[in-house]
């Protein structure tokens, strides 16, 4: 089943409510109208009946009575087809009647309900006749010396019904046009209200990654109700734009970083090729080019690691990792490296600690930080590695080198991708500025973080916090 559009749904609801309201009002008005009209008829009929009753009281012969009755019932403006019937209780023949019992009106007058015993004070009103020829009758009883006299006076009431029929038609026409008008108005309003959504949709259709930052949805035409929607969309667009810009920056930085070793290798090989050389020179060129290729491989490896870490919900192998054992093993490999240049790596005897995490990722994390500490610290200096519990129960690894300090303005950017301290693009130290960025991503994957402090007197301290489960 296809769902109706909002426009039609709102219109349907509004028209249903209007129909109910208008019909209710019409019915009430109709009933009121009918009652008030019939009341008029009833008063006239009752007045006639009472007039006849009074005439009966001072009865001066049938002739006189007939005259009186004619005077009472045949007054101008009143329909001449007014009819009446007067008879005594218990008698089957009429004292007086306007019509014979077998005539049309006469027969109606004889079909009165007999369960009532009306009086002058409590008259009984009866509807009779046929459709389009309705009659209203009043029936009273008057006690006289000769006995109780019944008086029925009936008059046509079809003009009342005619007026009511007119009223009914008026109600239908008025109500109908009201409903129709409201539906059109509602549809138009809904349409106007929805126009910004259509406009927004048109705008959204044209959005592609180059122009995503230029599209602004909220303008003055957007109704108040839709403003939060437009603002939310704008926020989303600007967030996406930021992400795209970061991505673009990342791609261009990555290309830049790859170009350097590539141009080195190319220039080395072209230099070797340009004229006849000694075997040694060729050997050196091959060795240098292989080093450049190794650098490219390392960079591509790092880029891939970052790309995988960036994947939302990318799966990480989770298992129990014995941090103390892992750090001891890692530190040992750096101890040998540092000893060659007269330096030291000291791993303070750690507590046993097991965390839930990704072993490969953690190895990469600590290696990257240890690489930095042993590379940028003095070659004959000492690197301290300590494992402990943070105040919040997190596993905390502190890697401290007494090396040169990092300028304070660089500290917040150390974990940014491709960031190198002091705008140094020199590759003599090797890195592309991705090691710490990768380390931070891995720490975040373990619900942790990395913080770095540095000053000339105490060196650089990298503090890695990791959730234990």
């Amino acid at each position: 089943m296809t769902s109706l559009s909002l426009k039609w749904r709102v219109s349907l609801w509004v028209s249903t409510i209007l129909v109910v309201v208008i019909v209710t009002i019409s019915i009430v008005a109709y009933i009121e109208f009918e009652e008030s009209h019939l009341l008029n008829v009833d008063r006239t009929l009752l007045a006639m009946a009472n007039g006849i009753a009074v005439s009966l009281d001072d009865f001066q012969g049938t002739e006189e009575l007939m005259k009186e009755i004619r005077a009472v019932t045949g007054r101008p403006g009143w329909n001449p087809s007014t009819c009446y019937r007067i008879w005594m209780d218990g008698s089957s023949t009429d004292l007086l009647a306007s019509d014979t019992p077998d005539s049309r009106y006469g027969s109606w007058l004889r079909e009165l309900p007999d369960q009532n015993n009306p009086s002058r004070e409590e008259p009984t009103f009866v509807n009779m006749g046929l459709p389009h020829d309705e009659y209203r009758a009043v029936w009273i009883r008057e006690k006289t010396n000769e006995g109780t006299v019944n008086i029925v006076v009936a008059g046509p009431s079809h003009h009342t019904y005619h007026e009511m029929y007119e009223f009914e038609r008026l109600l239908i026409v008025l109500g109908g046009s009201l409903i129709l008008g409201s539906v059109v108005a509602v549809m138009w309003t809904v349409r106007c209200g929805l126009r910004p959504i259509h406009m927004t949709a048109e705008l959204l259709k044209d959005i592609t990654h180059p122009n995503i930052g230029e599209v602004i949805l909220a303008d003055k035409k957007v109704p108040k109700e839709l403003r939060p929607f437009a603002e939310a969309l704008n926020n989303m667009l600007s967030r996406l734009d930021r992400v795209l810009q970061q991505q673009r920056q990342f791609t261009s930085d990555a290309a830049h970083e790859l170009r350097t070793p590539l141009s080195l290798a190319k220039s080395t090989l072209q230099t070797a090729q340009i004229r006849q050389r000694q075997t040694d020179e060729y050997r050196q060129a091959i060795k240098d080019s292989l080093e450049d290729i190794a650098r490219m491989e390392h960079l591509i490896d790092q880029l891939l690691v970052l790309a995988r870490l960036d994947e939302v919900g990318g799966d990480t192998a989770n298992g129990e990792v014995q941090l103390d054992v892992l750090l001891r093993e890692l530190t040992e490999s750096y101890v040998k490296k540092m000893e060659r240049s007269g330096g030291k790596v000291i791993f303070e005897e750690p507590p046993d600690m097991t965390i839930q995490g990704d072993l490969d990722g953690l190895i990469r994390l600590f290696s990257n930080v240890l690489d930095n500490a042993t590379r940028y610290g003095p070659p004959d200096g000492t690197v301290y590695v300590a494992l402990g519990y943070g105040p919040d129960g997190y596993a905390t690894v502190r890697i401290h080198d007494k090396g040169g300090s990092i300028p304070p303005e660089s500290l917040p950017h150390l974990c940014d991708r491709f960031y190198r301290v002091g705008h140094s693009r020199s590759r003599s130290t090797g890195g592309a500025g991705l090691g710490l960025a990768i380390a931070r991503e891995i720490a975040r994957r373990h619900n942790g973080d990395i913080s770095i402090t540095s000053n000339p007197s105490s060196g650089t301290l990298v503090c890695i916090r990791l959730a234990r489960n």
Partner: protein
Amino acid sequence: MRVLIIEDEIRLARNVAKVLDEESSWAVDISIDGEDGRHMAMTNPYDLIILDLGLPKISGLKILQDLRRNNMTVPVLILTARDAADDIIQGLEMGSDDYMVKPFDIRELIARCKALVRRSYGRATPVIEIGNISINTTKHQVIVRGRAVRLSAMEYRLLEYLAMRAGEVVSKTDIVDHLYDFGSEKYSNVVEVYISSLRKKLGLDSESELIHTFRNQGYVLGELPV
């Protein structure tokens, strides 16, 4: 001709320097950071500067700006990994003469360098003809009266420099500044030795023919200035 390469990738700089020396027989200086590079560019009369943009200490664009602000007209070729059109336009608008994106073809780089230097001396073609001497700066070929003459690297360097400035008085200091790189020892009396050996090899008999000596001023190749 003397060239300065400001490039922090020392191996890349050395490769370019080596090829420039071999193929153009130019004197080449290398600087691997911005500060040192700017100092060298400001204090030596280079015929060309090959400039990287992402340099330690001072950026390449800043060096270029400082050079032009000091009215130094030395041709500058930017050699960088930045390939966005905006970067290239910015580089050229700030006063560079050419722009090459890494990775580049080293032969193309050499050809562009030669063209830039040639242009800076107001020459449109690589062949310079003076009297009966024809010097092909692309092939390093010197032809005198239809006969090819073999010159040593330094002799060729000297002849090419004098030929580029043919008709001008070229001082010994200029010659030394443009023929030797920073590392070599500079003896101005060696210039006289090269001049006389050039005269011999080119078959020029008297002092007045083609290479004129002006005592205490310098040398003029070709027509004397009016």
